[in-house]
């Protein structure tokens, strides 16, 4: 059982829901990312997703694209992200999941990536352009090391695939709320409720919803359907707006506290 599994076990016992913020590691720079993660933990984050910047992020909308570009401008790569993870691990046991496109992992070498991620203290990995058909050898290595390869379900996924993802996904099931890219949206996509019910037919694993979740009002509607929510672009917007503000961390904390509170 790794930190993600332990977290959900505890949440289930207490009847809680997971608040999972996402940030791009290195936006605006690695040491600030470290501080942001620790701040998020203090504000009540249950798991943190750390994004590895990539030059061609096809699943991301404008907010995360820009964030990824800022991190690339700070010369951040997969190795430096793992360094940040190591530094966080000196001070925190918060469950950490990396979100990375496949090519940086492939260039490092998948076996080496899994070893180094494990050693650094990563718990799970999400790869938006690696569907389960292509995940074979990476998944095997991760299983050996006890790391979770967290798989995604989309509104277009058919039952047969949902069943397979339900069986194979580690940690939790990442449900994409809409057909679309990442980015803050105002409304709750209601059809997602049916999708979640379909997933529950096939698995007891925790189900977390991401893409477009940005306000406490949305969360209040969604929270009874799922085991956790993932908030990316809305948080990145807070960071983006306060890049030059010395109170950046306070702003992040305030946003996170508010989102966490809406889950209770």
């Amino acid at each position, binding site marked *: 059982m790794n930190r993600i599994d332990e977290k959900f076990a505890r949440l289930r016992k207490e009847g809680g829901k997971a608040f999972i913020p996402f940030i791009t590691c290195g936006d605006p720079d690695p040491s600030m990312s470290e501080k942001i993660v620790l701040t998020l933990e203090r504000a009540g984050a249950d798991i943190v997703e750390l994004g590895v910047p*990539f*030059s*061609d*992020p*096809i*699943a991301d*909308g*404008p907010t995360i*694209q820009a964030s990824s570009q800022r991190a*690339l401008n700070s010369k951040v*790569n*997969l*190795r430096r992200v793992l360094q940040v993870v190591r530094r966080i691990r000196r001070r925190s046991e918060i469950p950490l999941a990396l979100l990375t496109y*496949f*090519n*940086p*992992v*492939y*260039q*490092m070498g998948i076996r080496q990536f899994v070893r180094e991620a494990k050693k650094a203290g990563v718990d799970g990995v999400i790869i*938006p*352009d*690696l*569907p389960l*058909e*292509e995940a074979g050898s990476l998944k095997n290595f991760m299983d050996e090391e006890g790391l979770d390869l967290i*798989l*995604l*379900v*989309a*509104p*277009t*996924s*058919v039952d047969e*695939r949902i069943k397979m*993802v339900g069986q194979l996904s580690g940690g939790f099931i990442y449900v*994409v709320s*809409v*057909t*679309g*890219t990442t980015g803050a949206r105002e409304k709750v996509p209601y059809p997602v409720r049916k999708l979640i019910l379909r997933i529950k037919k096939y698995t007891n694993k925790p189900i977390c919803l991401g893409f477009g979740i940005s306000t406490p009002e949305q969360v209040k509607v969604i929270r009874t359907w799922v085991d956790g929510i993932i908030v990316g672009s809305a948080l990145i917007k807070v960071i983006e707006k306060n890049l030059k503000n010395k109170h950046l961390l306070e702003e992040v904390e305030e946003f996170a506290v508010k989102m966490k509170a809406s889950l209770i």
Partner: protein
Amino acid sequence: MLPDKRGYFGEFGGRFVPEVLVPALKELEEAYLSVARADSFQKELKSYLKDYAGRPTPLYLAENLSRSLGNTRIYLKREDLLHTGAHKLNNTLGQVLLAKKMGKNRIIAETGAGQHGVATATACALLGMECIVYMGKEDIKRQSLNVLRMETLGAEVRCVEGGSQTLKDAVNEALRDWVTNVRTTFYVLGSVVGPHPYPMMVRDFQSVIGKEAREQILQKEKRLPDCLIACVGGGSNSIGLFYPFYKDKVEFIGVEAGGSGLNTGRHAASLTKGKKGVLHGALSYLLQDKDGQIKPTYSIAPGLDYPGVGPELAYYKKTGRAKFATVTDKEALSGFFLLSRTEGIIPALESAHAIAYAKKISSKLQDKLVILNLSGRGDKDMHIIEEFSRGENEQNR
């Protein structure tokens, strides 16, 4: 028969896409295999290719060019004479017709130089489909005439401001559109790249080039050629020519864009200088840095300006079935003028790479029978020639 069921050519290809697209690609694959390969579809497509697009294109013995290179026989496959001025229409007519049969009336496409965008807009005008073309801001500036052509044909051109603002970013944005509108939208990809089944489907639609050329050369010369030469960006015109000769004892030569030179970092030679990696849904050779970030590319020929290459060509390289070489911008320009002045045919700058390479290796082509794919005509490039000459003049001053 390649690709295999998972869309692999040996170790290359596959389907590295977000989950939301997986069902759409499966649907496309099924529709392609059941609808597009059926006789009735092929008959309908063939009729459009013949009466609308102007196929078969001639296989022309370029005697003046051949003579200027010594004792060789070079035939040009005249894709420049196809409607819209390049081979791209072979593919877009096929894909847009398939989209129509699938009931998807919203078409999206990416374009770099604008040739694939124009070919898509043309097929959409013909078949009554809505057409949106993504194009990098930088390319819009460089290829304003093609923007106007697409708009004239009724397409909407959407400016892509992310990344390097060129072809690769236009593909990114088209993929993002597709992720969002996947239920109603058909993505017409312009080359033999992307996730399975695109590399296979685009190859098949472009194979009409090689099928015709094979019949034509047998008729004219009563034998198969010694070698085939074509330029390689994503790879659609080269694979279109090569594929029908795959089992023949015919040498394949692909010519990549050497840009300012392979050691300058300013080129687009993904097969020659790239490493294996995953971009836009397939595993192939890519120009990338050691962290796996995609590098910016450069070529005087906008249609070759792409950091990746089709997985089937990667497989041809790995297995030695094809050889790949590069020529620089300057060499390509000399090929451009050579064909213009010996034959009265102004080639596209992309195709000029193939001509330049034939010139470069002319000593090896003696007594050889060659087919060179003249993938497009050069009208679209006149302003690039103008700018380049102006730059040269300024440097010489």
